[in-house]
Structure formats: structure tokens, C-alpha cells
């Protein structure tokens, strides 16, 4: 059996290197001897059936177009219902939710797959390094190591009752809805604002998605020394920034 990973519309939703997430998942699967196929699905074609769909960031216009195409196409919804995994970043995160704003702030219907809603922020864009502490397993969270990435968005996202946050923001903005939460998950769909691409910096998250997509068995360990070096440097850099800002705020 071949694991099929689909990068959804890289021509519309691939702005911040997020197509890399599909590439990373494919590599981590094939390094473990899993037969894997990574497809780049153009928005001009029908969306192929897959086991794991990746959606990335995009600009306002292309985001509206992508949402419309995915809705008309219908494959993403039916694949999710049949057990596929969906991993959505930034504009992709907003699209899979219930509603999202365009450049003028007008709300558009999302795909309604993840119980979150996004509105246009009133302040400046949220840009910079983000560190998130995942909620613990015993509290219904995913219990992964610190999440690190780079955010660049204007939307503010709030969670509905069916979705859970990934965790608590330690540095940066995240969802921006005032509750210091970042990202959301619900069944087999997981969304986040973080780029980097986020799976390059968070191999544990990549492996969680692979575990979901392959049926939950234990995954063979990989040499993640390069990823760990990158993680440590980025986390340290965010900590330094937090300290600087902390000192600056003191009277």
C-alpha cells in the first residue's frame, strides 16, 4: 500500500515555503521504508484522493479562489470523512475553518471542516518568531515538545467548541483571539499559523501526522540531529527576544 501525500494547490497556497511540509512528510516516510507518493495538486485540476493533505499560506486573492475551488471540488471533505489527515497552515488553516476575511475584511465561508472562525485584525500584521507550549496529553492535548515557527498573518482566529487549541503561546501572537492560544485540531485535521516550514523545525509534529495517516503504529526513529540543532537555535533566539522585550517593558 502506498501512502499518498497531497500538497493542495501549491500554485495558490504555497507562499511561505509551506509546500516543504509535504516534502518533509514524504521524506520522513520513505526514510522509514514506507512506500510513499507526494503529489503537487494544481488548482486547475480535480483534487486527487490522498491519505494526508497539506495546505499552506497564500495571499488574500488566491486564498478566496482556493477556498472556492476546494468547496466546488468536494474531495477534501469526503477524504476527511473517510479517514484522511488534513494539515493546514496559515491561509490554509483559515480556509478549513468556518469563515475567513479577504483583503477588505469581508467574510467568506470556509470549508467548515475545523471549528474555528477568523476575522480581520485591527492592528498591524502579526509577524515574527513564535514558540508554543503544547497542551499536555492528560489535559486532552497532543503533548508534543515546544512548537517553533514563524508567523505572518493579519487574521484573528477563535475556536468553536468542537476544536481544541494546540497549546499556549510563549512567544509571538498565534491565533490572536485574546486567549494566547495557537492553532487548532479536531479529529484528524490540524491547523496552525506557523511557517518555517513548520515541520522542518518540529519533526515530532511531522511524525504525529504520519502516525495518524498510517494507522497509529509506532514509527521507526530517525536521526534528527540537524532538526534539533535548528530547533535549539530558534528557541534560544526567541527566548533572547522575550528577555529583551521583557527588560524594555520595565519602567
Amino acid at each position, binding site marked *: 500500500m502506498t501512502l499518498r501525500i497531497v500538497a493542495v494547490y*501549491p*500554485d*495558490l497556497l*504555497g*507562499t*511561505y*515555503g*509551506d*509546500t*516543504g511540509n509535504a*516534502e*518533509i512528510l514524504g*521524506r520522513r516516510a520513505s526514510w522509514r521504508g514506507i512506500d510513499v507518493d507526494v503529489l503537487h495538486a494544481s*488548482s*486547475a485540476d480535480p483534487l486527487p484522493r490522498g491519505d494526508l493533505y497539506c495546505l499552506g499560506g*497564500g*495571499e*488574500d*486573492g*488566491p486564498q*478566496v*479562489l482556493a477556498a*472556492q475551488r476546494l468547496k466546488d471540488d468536494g474531495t477534501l471533505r469526503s477524504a476527511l470523512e473517510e479517514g484522511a489527515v488534513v494539515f493546514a497552515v496559515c491561509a490554509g488553516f483559515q480556509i478549513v475553518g468556518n469563515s475567513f476575511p479577504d*483583503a477588505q475584511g469581508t467574510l467568506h465561508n470556509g470549508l467548515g471542516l475545523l471549528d474555528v472562525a477568523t476575522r480581520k485584525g485591527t492592528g498591524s500584521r502579526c*509577524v*515574527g*518568531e513564535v514558540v508554543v507550549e503544547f497542551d499536555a496529553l492528560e489535559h486532552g492535548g497532543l503533548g508534543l515538545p515546544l512548537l517553533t515557527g*514563524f508567523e*505572518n498573518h493579519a487574521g484573528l482566529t477563535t475556536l468553536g467548541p468542537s476544536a481544541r487549541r494546540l497549546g499556549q503561546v510563549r512567544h509571538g501572537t498565534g491565533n490572536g483571539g485574546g486567549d494566547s492560544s495557537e492553532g487548532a485540531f479536531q479529529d484528524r485535521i490540524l491547523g496552525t499559523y506557523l*511557517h*518555517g*516550514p513548520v515541520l*522542518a*523545525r518540529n519533526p515530532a509534529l511531522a511524525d504525529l501526522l504520519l502516525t495518524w495517516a498510517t494507522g497509529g503504529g509506532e514509527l521507526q526513529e530517525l536521526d534528527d540531529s*540537524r*532538526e534539533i*540543532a*535548528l530547533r535549539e*537555535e530558534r528557541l534560544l533566539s526567541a527566548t533572547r527576544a522575550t528577555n529583551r522585550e521583557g527588560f524594555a517593558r520595565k519602567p
Partner: protein
Amino acid sequence: MPIRRSLAMKSVGLVNQLSQKLGRGQGTVAGGRVGLAIDPHLLGDLTANKCVVLVSGTNGKTTTTALIASGLRTHFSNVATNDTGSNMPAGHVAALVDEEEAQAVVLEVDENYVPRLLETSNPAVITLLNLSRDQLDRMSEVRMLAQRWRDALSRTGGIHVVANADDPLVVYAAFSASEVTWVAGGLVWKEDAAGCPQCSGHIVFGKNETWACDSCDLARPEPTWTMKGNLVHSPLGAVHLNVILPGSFNRSNSLMALAAVTATGAEITKAARAISSVESVAGRFQHRRRPGQDARLMLAKNPAGWAALLEVVEESATPVVVSINSRTADGADPSWLFDVDFSSLRNRVVIVTGDRWRDLSVRLHYGGVDHSREADPEMAITRAANASDGTVDFIGNYTAFQEVTRARS
């Protein structure tokens, strides 16, 4: 001369001298800032009665500006330009303040400053090259930029726009101008052009560089300037353009430059000869030779730039040093490295360096490119040279590239 302007101009020179003495950069921006603070209209004064050509776009600005300057010198006895890389108003002022005698001016313009320069610098010609993702944490998204260019051009009369017909975002911006020359300027990187900038439709690319939106009337305008081999076809006749600079993107830059230069009234054959003769621009593609090493220095700072450059690098088998920084001029987010297909480096000796070598290392790891790392760029070049006959291809993003070009001795 009004006293305010005179004072402003004197200040630019004084501050620049002081800043150079203090060893703060090349002393081009500080003086310009002070000058503009004293006289906000300084740029308009400095460009009055001169033939001004502006150049903007995500990639190829510096090169095309240099090519245009070279072409303009066949027609104007004295040409001023901002060849220091300072492409915002303070840099423009600094480049012009000692150039009273210049008859023509060519300015490289940061994409964000195109509207302001259109309003303040009395341009005769503006050359619009391309728009693609670049430093998204610092710059605007590309559709927003295209819209701002379009709005500014629709407000500006009497300017001749030389625009790349192959880039949908540039075409959208330029369509609002009253006089446009369409050039077949090529588009290596199409990933940012799929969503129509005019409606929420889809841009479909067809054969022979044609493209059109599937939902509205935006489509590729017929270019009047095209290039086949070394032969340029234009409304002014056919002419040979034997470009020395490597890569198809530099042929495109040269074609855009030729169209822009002739828009000022310059004679096409002379201009083509001058543009052809340019060998290196601001150190790019220059060979830095030291005992035991010969490093070819290249700049690539975004996915489109890399896509264009890899075509040049693929022709060689020498070791490659890649250096990535994330200082202010580079942008803080190197996520875009995952938009670059590095697979053509798989059988080469590759050394990663720069402030963000860890990001690069992870990216190459997933791209299946074996590599080693070296924190210090100069050590990386030395190690690469030792692994070959001394020849090295060095590719860096903005400040990484500057670091090695400035360490010349």
C-alpha cells in the same frame, strides 16, 4: 538656488563625509536622510530638467539599472545612478547630490517606493521587470504591490512604461498607464502568478509564453520587443545583443534595458553594443581571486532568483558554498528555502554557512543534498577551494553576498 535646497544639499555631503569617516557603511544613506528632512522636495529639485529612468521589480533591478546606465552613456554625456545598492529615497538623494551636471539619471527603486518615486522624481521612463515573493516578513505581498503600482501609474501622466509582458502581475500594474512598451522579458518563476491579480480567477499559462485569466479579460499583451538567440526584434528594427552576463535572466534584463534606453531617444545599435559589453554588475558573477582560490560570487535572495541562478550554476561541477543570513536587509524568515529545488546540487561538494546555516542544512537534508557546514563564510570558501582545483561557486543572499564581496583584499 533657494536657501532651503542649498542647505539640504550641503548637509547631504557633510553627513556622508562624516559617516564615512566614522566608518558607518558607505555613507550613502545617512546624508540623504538628513537632506530629505531639511527639504522634503529635494529629490524633485535634484531631478528637475534631467531625463530620469526608474527601474523596479523583485529580481534584476541592480543589473538592469547598470545596463541602462551603460546604454544611456551612448546618448547623454553625463549619467548619474545609484549604483551603491541604496534603492530608497535617501539613497537616491545621496546619489544625485553631487551630480548637478548629469543630463540623465537612472535609479534602481525598491518595490515599495515606486509610487513615491513616480510622484517625486519627474521620471520619463519606468522599467517594470517582475514581481514575486521576496522577504514576506518585510515587504508586502506581491498582489498588494502590483495594486499599488497600478494605482500610482494611473495617477501619473506623461511617463513611458517599459513593462515585462510575460509577468501577469507586472502587466496588471502597467495596464493603467497611458504609454506602455511591452517587452517579452521572460518569467522563470511562475508560482506567484497563478491567482489573477484583477479578479479571483486563475491565470493559465499556454504555449510560447502566452497566458490569460480564465475568468476575466487579463491576458498577455503582444510584446513589441522580443529576442530570438542574439537577435532583438523591435519597432526600431532588428539588432544584435550579444549578452556577456550569464543566464537567460540576464538576456531578459538586457532586452528590458535596451527597450528602456531607446525610450529616451538613444540610438538602438549603439545602445545594444554598450549593454552587451557589461561584464559584471556590483560584484555579481565577478571572480574573486586569491592565492589558491578563484571564487565566482553570486547573489540569490528569493525563490525566483534561485530558479534563475541554478540554471547558471548547473553548468559547472565545482564545489558550491551557500551562505544564508537573516539580517535586516535579508528578511527574518528563510522559509522560502523550501521553495527552491536544490536537487541539481546533489552530486556536488556543498558547504553551508551564514547566520542561518541550520535552516539551510535541514532544507538540503530533506532535498537529498549531502553537505557539510562551516560557521565562517571565508573558511567555507577556503575549504571548498581545497576540495577542487581552487574554483568555487559562492551563492549568498543579500548581506551574505556583501560580506564576501567587501572582503576583497
